[in-house]
């Protein structure tokens, strides 16, 4: 057992165990250095982070449950738009709160609070300029948010530092094989698919299938039996392209790949296939690791726009399961639109996003 596995066993909540120690034959990669808890004992900073987590949840619940009261309290007109904004902010607060309290990595969630604070300050600044609002109250609210923002920022910084102090770089495979680690995003997700292992492996093995269920991939072109060319959507409408090479391929067990050295976003990944007990199909475990453009701040901004890497990978895996089990990606009236959209039939199929084969079915 490596030191990293050992640490995972001792300090992680069960999800950590699931990700590390229950698969002892997997190479273990150190997770993001800043996310490591330093000791089993909770530090002051972690306690403060937990306090901020509960604060987030309380505030979020108030914003969703009593938007009018909150609006009055901070001196803003109580209209439809305010209520909608309040609801969105409330959801964000609850998400941050739950994230901080439940996460193995409260650090990034505390940073998400900082981002949220900046957003709130911007909104309050806008509210200040609206005549009908009570400027004294808005001013007081702004001061309060600014205070909390400072606290969030300090907590975030201290958590990050604590993490760095204790980081252990014990990851084997990818580090030795050259993928970047400093400030990298590392995601692990698992899902069980009710299909035989060779079938699940076989579908993934053809990388050109991946864009059928990976929302951010535009295309993958297989160049030869080792190399492939990947094209992905980046936040804010940009695209990135890179070449990757397969570094390990064990039939029906494992596929691992990494970007070639000149990639603008160095990344690597692996997928493992294992029989689920009791003929339940195949357990698929995906690991992805990449250096987001713009480092930590870039990752944070991406998260604010809903591009949370863990969720993305989980979503991709879920769509993979849909494709394997049902033959296509399942769409609802709301899911075919980017962002929230009323659950009404689409007016025109040309302006909706249908991943995978469905578009072909839809327009025939």
């Amino acid at each position, binding site marked *: 057992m490596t030191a990293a596995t050992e640490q995972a066993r001792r300090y992680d909540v069960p999800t950590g165990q699931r990700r590390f120690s229950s698969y002892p034959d997997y190479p273990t990669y150190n997770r993001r250095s800043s996310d490591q808890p330093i000791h089993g004992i909770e530090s002051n900073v972690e306690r403060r982070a937990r306090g901020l987590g509960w604060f987030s949840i309380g505030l979020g619940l108030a914003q969703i*449950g009593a938007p009018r009261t909150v609006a009055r309290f901070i001196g803003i007109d109580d209209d439809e738009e305010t209520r909608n904004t309040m609801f969105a902010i409330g959801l964000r607060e609850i998400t941050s709160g739950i994230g901080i309290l439940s996460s193995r990595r409260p650090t990034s969630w505390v940073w998400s609070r900082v981002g949220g604070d900046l957003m709130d300050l911007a909104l309050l600044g806008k509210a200040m300029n609206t005549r009908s609002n009570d400027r004294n109250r808005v001013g007081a609210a702004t001061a309060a948010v600014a205070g909390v923002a400072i606290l969030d920022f300090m907590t975030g910084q201290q958590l990050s530092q604590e993490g760095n102090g204790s980081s252990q770089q014990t990851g084997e495979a990818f580090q030795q094989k050259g993928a970047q680690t400093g400030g990298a995003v590392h995601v692990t997700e698992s899902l069980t698919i009710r299909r035989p292992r060779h079938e699940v492996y076989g579908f993934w093995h053809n990388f050109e299938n991946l864009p059928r269920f990976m929302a951010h991939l535009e295309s993958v072109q297989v160049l030869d039996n080792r190399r492939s060319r990947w094209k992905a959507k980046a936040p804010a409408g940009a695209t990135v392209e890179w070449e990757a090479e397969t570094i390990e391929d064990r039939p029906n067990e494992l596929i691992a790949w990494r970007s070639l050295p000149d990639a603008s976003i160095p990344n690597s990944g692996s997928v493992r296939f294992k029989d689920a007990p009791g003929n339940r199909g195949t357990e698929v475990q995906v690991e992805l690791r990449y250096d987001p453009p713009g480092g930590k701040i870039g990752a944070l901004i991406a998260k604010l726009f809903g591009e949370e890497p863990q*969720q993305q990978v989980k979503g991709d895996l*879920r769509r993979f399961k849909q494709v394997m*089990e049902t033959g296509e990606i399942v769409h609802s009236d*709301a899911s075919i639109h980017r962002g929230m959209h009323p659950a009404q*039939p689409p007016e025109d199929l040309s302006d909706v996003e249908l991943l995978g084969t469905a578009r072909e*079915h839809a327009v025939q």
Partner: protein
Amino acid sequence: MARKESVQIMKANCWMGKKKVQVEEVPDPKILNSHDAIVKISSTAICGSDLHLYNGFVPTMERGDVLGHEFMGEVVEVGRGVRNLKVGDRVVVPFPIACGACGACEAGMFSVCENSNPNAWIAEKLLGHSPAGIFGYSHMLGGFAGGQAEYARVPFADVGPLKVPEDLTDDQVLFLSDIFPTGYMGAEMCDIQRGDIVAVWGAGPVGQFAIASAYMLGAERVIAIDRFQYRLDMARDRAGASDIINYEQMNVQDALLELTGGRGPDKCIDAVGMEAHGHGVTYAYDRAKQAMMLETDRPIALREAILACRSGGVVSVIGVYGGFIDKFPMGAVMNRSLTIRAGQCHVHRYMRPLLERIQNGEIDPSFVITHRLPLDQAAKGFDMFVNKEDNCEKVVLST
């Protein structure tokens, strides 16, 4: 592929905010997946669980969401993956959407289908794992447009919809979509034994079917509990309850002890859910906490059912809960060896056997219908149903 007549715009009942629904013109549904069918709706109903949406207790609703999950009609278009249905078939559609291919579906647990909720990530945040997608029931449960409309898109149409014979009326088979199977599953989860006395909290439409089903499954006696006399009368006169308890007039626990020789009911069914009413301090406490969003659900009926149930008995929960409850009497559950079973109904597995019971004349589910309105007047239907006006029990909308 067959084409339906070219209607571009349809009428649909939309959620427009708390306590506000409105029939709007929205685009016609289209085939989005190869296993879809488009159904031209003939009859659709307002469900008690729609009132939780109406009253604003279910998160992740968007202004404009098309409501409705109890509907039937005629198939007017099928995707190329649908082999068992053809244009012109008359079908009843189950409210949970199920793929038929995942582990849950394979196990017959259709309402927890692993593939049918494209917004599973939202549900996971609140519920740990995601259940199936449901028509017209929040974005957390999929963001699917519902069936209080002229047309609906039905995903996995080769798995869900049940063809119904022409000699049965809409009124007789419509409730196979939800409330009859839901009530039946509530009774089935009780594992009813000879001599069992079953108590049912809530004499709404689901409660009525739970009562009738408990008898089908061999209950000795069934006790109905509610606060509206007209509902209790229906439970006694139509569903066949042997005893009724109006909790505004008597103490439920005392009455149950008296009716069961001091044992308590052997099996208890909660057909109320998250918006229970009650008396006194605990009711005020739950209302206040729910209003402040400190708990999402008011579990008054559930608590009462647990405390009333005889030791070693079963509490079966079919009333809808959305999130978190408070002051849950776990001590009673553990120390008195109670079994709690719960679930959104796995409608798919009950539709056919229950259709047979209807065909055999064992039950005519239309007895719960008290009001019929055109789809246009959906808002009036919601208003009557939520306020229990004019002895409203079940509203059916026709298109």
